[in-house]
């Protein structure tokens, strides 16, 4: 297609799998260790962030994963944690998280990971860990989860004092004072929380959680892409899909509007992203010219030999057939003027049933002989056109010839016949060529003298052809459907024809009627009757050929029109009407460029387009992801307009403060466009001129740890928030120490 030549091939980003690391997780120096310095651990379901609170940022950030690796040779089991799992391919692929969804399910892993964390922080144990600890837990943490944490921290590690808090609140606290009003949207890995805060205290009773986070988004993207490309040659890893989500997805400022024009050429030129799975390309070894030449020669020689063999065989067969024909011709001559009985006996001696059988045989023999001669003629056309074979023996009577000469004569006879046939075929060819030439000339003249008529005629023919083809295509699809009218009719016809007693004809004669003499059978009296065989014979394969034939004719007509009709352009051709530019599906699957299914690179490419906004949109419309929950902005709207003594028309002071101090935190909030979208939603549902401030820190995933650090550095608040080992032993595992950053008791 000429128009496609101008389309530049799309640039593809190669999507590498997780790179292996070279250096294991470093150890902090034990020299600086202070036993009373609180340790802050953000034990997230994705990453662990850990450090002493006197550090500016966590000194260790690593994936919350663990691999137990058994070395068979050494017969030893090693445990690798966090970044150390990324040192080796096998170890990496076997890494498991202590989490199942948002809940911790493997507490042995938790113990191992905590120990590893302390060890890397340079903690010197002294009958357990002497440092106070700040750790996060889920909003409305399940009691058994907290019990297990108590056990691990107080009993296993013997930690004197632990402050538990909600990560979303820690994130808020990192940037705000303990007495401020605000609203936090915490976008976590497994859930998203919306928390109102009044006077520094989180109103957990008004807090809502959407069960959707980064990991669900990545899973959703994985499902969407595997359904989009069901025959994708390689399987991408979770890491690669996460990369896709992080690098290319964004929150649309106005989803409804953007999605409606997403799959248009203009938009896709900017928004379509092509990612390519890495693969090893198999390069066919290039043969040298010399090798190719030898190969070609060999092939040619082989072909020639085979041709000669075949020719020899054909000739032998022909001679045999000619002999046969002559023999039977003699018999035929004998039959002339004989009584019927003698004829029959002669024929039966020769191996025939009766005269009819004999005639049929002769007819067939003659036919095949003629056919063979014509083939032979075509084959020999070039070779021995000029060779005037000798036909000298033909004139001489058989009786005057000896055995050898007789054979030669037969051969000459055959050659003569084939020569004649050849001449005839040549004449025929010349005649056809002449007729064609004449027709062409006539047409050209017509075109030159009266272009508009010519165009009209051609266009009319084209329209008819296109319609015919369309009908056939429709018939073909109908044929595939067993229930369609076309195939039902066909089955009916087949059944009717196969039946011994056709249903047609109301009155049947008593006497036995065969297919030949049934007086009631008027089939064939009307010429249209025969069309039934046409209908029956219509199967998809034959239709395919017919459609192909139509298409050839259409293309030929179109090329003529393209040349001479000034009003007929590429746009009007049949091909243009099936153009990928007009196909939503093509744009969706292959982007704004033609697709070459032979290209190995294109086979390994995925196009991200609507998915880029569809996946993050689930936070705002959870129904897209199959969640029967309200979206982020709806939850904010409820809190700001209907709670804390607010009315949709008049906002309370707390609600005004919240709208003016809203924070978006958490790793999943790093998706581009998040803040802009929240601003837009807020302006939409809040009364006009309500001051809005939406904040987002530059490194949202660190916010929680920074909040922990702030708490650890404020001794009075820390002491008031932390639960000591003594308190744990005194009050038991059900004890919750309520404070501004933590969970509260389950019951009021």
């Amino acid at each position: 297609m000429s128009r496609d030549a101008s389309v530049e091939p799309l640039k593809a980003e190669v999507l590498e799998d997780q790179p292996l690391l070279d250096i294991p997780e470093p150890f902090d120096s034990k020299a600086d260790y202070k036993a009373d310095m609180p340790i802050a651990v953000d034990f997230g379901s994705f990453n662990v962030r850990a450090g002493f609170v006197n550090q500016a940022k966590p000194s260790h950030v690593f994936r919350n994963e663990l691999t137990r690796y058994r070395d068979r040779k050494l017969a030893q089991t090693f445990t690798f944690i966090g970044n150390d799992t990324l040192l080796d391919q096998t170890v990496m692929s076997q890494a498991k998280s202590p989490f199942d969804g948002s809940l911790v399910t493997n507490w042995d892993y938790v113990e191992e990971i905590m120990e590893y964390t302390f060890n890397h922080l340079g903690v010197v144990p002294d009958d357990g860990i002497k440092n106070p600890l700040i750790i996060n837990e889920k909003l409305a943490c399940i009691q058994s989860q907290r019990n297990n944490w108590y056990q691990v921290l107080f009993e296993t590690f013997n930690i004197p004092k632990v402050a538990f808090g909600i990560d979303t609140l820690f994130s808020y606290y990192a940037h705000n004072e303990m007495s401020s009003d605000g609203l936090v949207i915490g976008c976590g890995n497994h859930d998203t929380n919306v928390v109102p805060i009044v006077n520094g205290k989180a109103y957990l009773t008004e807090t809502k959680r959407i069960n959707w986070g980064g990991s669900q988004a990545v899973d959703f993207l994985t499902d969407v892409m595997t359904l989009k490309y069901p025959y994708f040659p390689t399987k991408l890893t979770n890491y690669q899909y996460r990369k896709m989500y992080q690098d290319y997805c964004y929150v649309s400022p106005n989803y409804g509007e953007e999605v409606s024009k997403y799959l248009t050429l203009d938009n896709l030129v900017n928004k379509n992203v092509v990612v390519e799975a890495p693969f090893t390309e198999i390069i066919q070894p290039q043969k040298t010219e010399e090798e190719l030449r030898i190969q070609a020669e060999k092939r040619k020689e082989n072909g020639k030999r085979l041709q000669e063999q075949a020719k020899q065989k054909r000739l032998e067969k022909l001679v045999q057939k000619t002999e046969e024909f002559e023999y039977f011709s003699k018999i035929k001559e004998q039959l002339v003027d004989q009584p019927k009985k003698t004829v029959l006996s002669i024929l039966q001696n020769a191996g025939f049933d009766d005269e009819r059988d004999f005639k049929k045989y002769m007819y067939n023999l003659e036919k095949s002989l003629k056919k063979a001669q014509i083939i032979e003629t075509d084959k020999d056309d070039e070779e021995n056109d000029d060779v005037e074979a000798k036909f000298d023996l033909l004139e001489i009577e058989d009786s005057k010839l000896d055995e050898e000469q007789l054979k030669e004569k037969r051969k000459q006879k055959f050659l003569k016949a084939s020569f004649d046939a050849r001449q005839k075929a040549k004449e025929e060819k010349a005649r056809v060529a002449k007729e064609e030439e004449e027709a062409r000339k006539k047409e050209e003249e017509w075109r030159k003298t009266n272009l508009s008529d010519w165009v009209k005629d051609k266009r009319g023919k084209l329209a008819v052809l296109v319609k015919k083809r369309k009908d056939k295509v429709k018939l073909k699809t109908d044929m595939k459907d067993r229930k369609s009218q076309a195939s039902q009719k066909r089955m009916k016809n087949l059944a009717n024809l196969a039946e011994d007693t056709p249903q047609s004809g109301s009155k049947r004669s008593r006497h036995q009627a065969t297919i030949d003499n049934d007086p009631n059978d008027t089939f064939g009296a009307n010429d249209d009757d025969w069309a039934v065989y046409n209908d029956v014979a219509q199967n998809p394969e034959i239709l395919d050929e017919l459609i192909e034939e139509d298409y050839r004719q259409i293309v030929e007509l179109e090329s003529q029109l393209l040349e001479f009709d000034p009003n007929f352009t590429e746009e009007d051709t049949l091909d243009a009407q099936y153009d990928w530019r007009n196909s939503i599906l093509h744009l969706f699957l292959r982007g704004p460029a033609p697709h070459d299914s032979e290209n190995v690179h294109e086979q390994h490419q995925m196009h991200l387009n609507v998915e880029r906004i569809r996946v993050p949109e689930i936070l705002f419309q959870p129904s897209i992801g199959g969640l029967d929950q309200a979206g982020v902005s709806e939850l904010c709207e409820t809190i700001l307009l209907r709670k804390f003594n607010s009315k949709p028309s008049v906002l309370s002071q707390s609600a005004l403060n919240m709208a003016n101090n809203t924070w978006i935190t958490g790793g999943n909030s790093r998706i581009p466009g998040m803040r802009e979208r929240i601003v837009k939603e807020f302006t939409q549902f809040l009364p006009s001129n309500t001051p809005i401030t939406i904040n987002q820190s530059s490194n949202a995933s660190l916010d929680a740890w920074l909040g922990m650090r702030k708490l650890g550095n404020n001794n009075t608040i820390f002491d008031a928030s932390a639960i000591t080992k003594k308190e744990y032993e005194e009050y038991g595992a059900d004890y919750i120490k309520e404070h501004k950053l933590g969970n509260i008791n389950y019951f009021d």
Partner: protein
Amino acid sequence: MNNNNTRTNDERSEFLSGIAAMNVLEQPMRRAQIDILKEGGPAALAAALQRPKKKNNRRHKGARQILSDETKRINAILEQEQQKHEEDPAYVRRVPQVTTFNVSAPPSVRPVKHYCDITGLSGPYTSPTNNIRYHNSEIFQFIVKPMTPGVDQEYLKLRGANFVLK
């Protein structure tokens, strides 16, 4: 740069055991190990570390199990409160304040928008045979109509509309 994949098996083994050795503690941190050290000395601890760990089944519960246990726990408390109230009408029952269940966001009250299950564009039509929503006739003709029964469920699963056999 990275030679992790070019190592021979022996080199790899050595490398990995080296990493593991770096992470061996100088002094134990966990109560159980500290106790072993106090009683039997370093040799006993080293032996204990090599022993395969006992499976502690109490701790390995799936997320589903944990959630249903929490429901049971809360229901038990509610029942208890009810009983106390029946015995003494003056008793004020405690009500759930914040549990993992009541912080879950309620269903949306906004009208649910329909999107094409295949492309994600607007989805004004629904296939009568398998309930797939689709954007236009082209998508119906090439994707929805020839869809095999398993695949339609996969698509419906995306928006939680698939059939779940229980």
